[in-house]
């Protein structure tokens, strides 16, 4: 028994942390929010150089052939820095679907092109389809019989509660093939796992921001973080974020091992990471006060993304239902 990330995971995380810290992500996200995706694409290009984009793609197709733990480690870092664009879709869902129906399309993904996926009804829109190089649409056949996967065109776009996400309607244009029920479930699980990891990163980042601000901001002649009411909100959030992490790692391990409990474990991670990150978003906003409620402050970039991801790749209700079914 050794329940901890290995050194190789930590090293990979550290290299992503270093890359993203140097990338002035707040400016990149703001540009993306205003429709200028060029700086964001440059970041994605750098990420592809580290192997992030091809993590879950087999080596035969130009990827890293890495396991779900690497996927989780990378997604958490991308979440922590609020990397814009279809993260779970590019890193996890599209590679899983294409490996089933059109493996020849994997290589460009590994090299850094962006992919997005609509899978109605649970994922009705393709996020950032206008910015993506590949748009997939998944239409389930009769329940449990798998799904038709097709290339799609981006249609009308809706604004998301997160200004960095554009939610696009899709129309299938070119059928690619059929993913069976197991492959479809696996793609959804990877999407939920990558989203859970992003949320864990977001939760950690907002918690850190709350702690830093509580130490620095003074009122009534002392740091607001010396107030017990503030401390307790922050401590409770720390507990939630800390207790979600082992569920995330166990889910990644179960997916890696093809465990029969993988689905259940991914759902547990998604629920726990969602609850913790959402709580962190509320507490961070409250600790910052009015400055946190401005677009000018960087907290805004993470806060609304958190709310958007709460329901991405399976709502909390869906995942809780799935857990009860498994139990």
């Amino acid at each position, binding site marked *: *028994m*050794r*329940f901890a990330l290995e050194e190789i995971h930590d090293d990979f995380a550290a290299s992503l942390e270093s890359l993203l810290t140097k990338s002035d992500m707040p400016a990149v996200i703001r540009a993306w929010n205003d429709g200028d995706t060029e700086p964001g694409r440059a970041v994605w290009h750098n990420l592809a150089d580290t192997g992030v984009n091809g993590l879950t793609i087999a080596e035969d197709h130009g990827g890293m052939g890495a396991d779900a733990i690497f996927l989780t480690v990378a997604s958490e870092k991308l979440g922590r820095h609020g990397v814009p664009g279809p993260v779970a879709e590019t890193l996890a869902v599209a590679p899983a679907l294409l490996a089933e129906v059109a493996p020849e399309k994997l290589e460009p993904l590994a090299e850094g092109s962006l992919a997005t996926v609509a899978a109605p009804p649970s994922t009705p829109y393709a996020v950032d389809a206008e910015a993506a190089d590949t748009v997939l649409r998944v239409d389930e056949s009769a329940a449990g019989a798998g799904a038709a996967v097709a290339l799609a065109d981006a249609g009308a776009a809706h604004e998301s509660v997160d200004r960095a996400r554009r939610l696009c309607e899709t129309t299938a244009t070119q059928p690619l093939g059929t993913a069976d029920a197991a492959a479809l479930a696996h793609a959804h699980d990877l999407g939920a796992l990558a989203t859970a990891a992003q949320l864990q990163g977001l939760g950690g980042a907002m918690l850190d921001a709350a*702690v830093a601000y509580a130490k620095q901001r003074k009122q009534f002649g002392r740091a607001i973080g*010396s107030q017990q009411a503030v*401390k*307790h909100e922050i401590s409770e959030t720390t507990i939630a974020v800390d207790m979600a992490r082992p569920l995330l790692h166990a889910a990644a391990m179960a997916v890696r091992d093809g465990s029969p409990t993988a689905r259940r474990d991914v759902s547990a991670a998604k629920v726990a990471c969602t609850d913790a990150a959402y709580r962190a978003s509320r507490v961070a906003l409250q600790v910052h006060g009015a400055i946190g409620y401005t677009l000018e402050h960087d907290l805004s970039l993470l806060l609304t993304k958190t709310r958007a991801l709460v329901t991405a790749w399976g709502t909390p209700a869906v995942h*809780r*239902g799935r857990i009860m079914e498994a139990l």
Partner: protein
Amino acid sequence: MDLEFDAETVAFRDEVRAFLRENVPASPLPSLDTAEGFEAHRAWERTLADAQLSVVAWPHEYGGREATLQQWVIFEEEYYRAGAPGRVSQNGIFLLAPTLFEHANAEQLDRIMPRMARADDVWAQAWSEPEAGSDLASLRSTATRVEGGWLLNGQKTWSSRAAFADWGFGLFRSNPEAERKHAGITYFMFDLRSTGVTVRPIDQLDGEPGFAELFLQDVFVPDDPADRGSSGVIGEVDNGWRVAMSTASNERGLSLRAPGRFLATTDRLLELWRAQTEAGVVDENDTALRDRVVDAWIGSRAYELSTWATVTRLEAGGKLGAESSINKVFWSEWDVATHETALDLLGPAAEVMGPWQDGYLFSLSGPIYAGTNEIQKNVIAERLLGLPKADR
């Protein structure tokens, strides 16, 4: 990264499981907070000790088997899954023993530990005082140096197990001249049956005297080992605060509380959900209730996994520090919420006393004992996150 156990650990699990299957009493023992139940639980501790299972993590010479941290967690898991009796010796083996192993001398260990392992001595803690609860260092009970020993005076309260226990341990002010309130305190062990000790049991919320008030009037703690049974001073005189705090977040104590108890409760909760939905008492489409059951499972799973993460860290040489406060708040809040969910699943029968109701009443003490959750959250904020101290 894996959750597989090696062959030795698996063999240990099998042995523990087989022992418990054969030896756990078929019907529950009477409550350990009654005179009859206390003795029944003491007898059970001896059954465990005969199989070298009462204190698995201790050294062989004191009745243990030097179990690894993994094995200890597994023991606890099996113990609770088997529905085995509550540990009447808990205060001694989880709170006092870690301190003794770190600070007692060899003579004290030889004298005290084997008796603790067999529950020949059952220990009660004597921390709180009427005016010293969360602010423990403001304690007023005194220890005065006299010819051949010490005299203890004062009042202790909320002393768990003291109604029937044999020995007590706690802190006493030995140097009234000390400038700081944390200084000049000494850690004592004393005989609850000796002259000058008055024990007044206090009925708890569940109706039983789980703790007591202690009135100490010139209670003599002798220096001579030949006279003193299990009594004496732990560590240096006037250094008791540091002695007590050094093991406050001990890895095998209440801080790294093994997840076994909560996993067993979760199993029972899931059984209850199935039974109540099948019986039509609870609508299986009631997602509000369903989600609470699911969240109880998620919480116990998170706690279990987080324990394995901590065990991994400790095995690699890490220390358990203030993060043990995260555990304490988490499990105590989880325990209350899970029992509330069970009562709500019971519907109109929730009021009728039974095991869930007993467990519920017990769970209500969790956020209070072993350091209130408010104090724990201050510890998390100040020691783990570095937030500034409040004016106290």
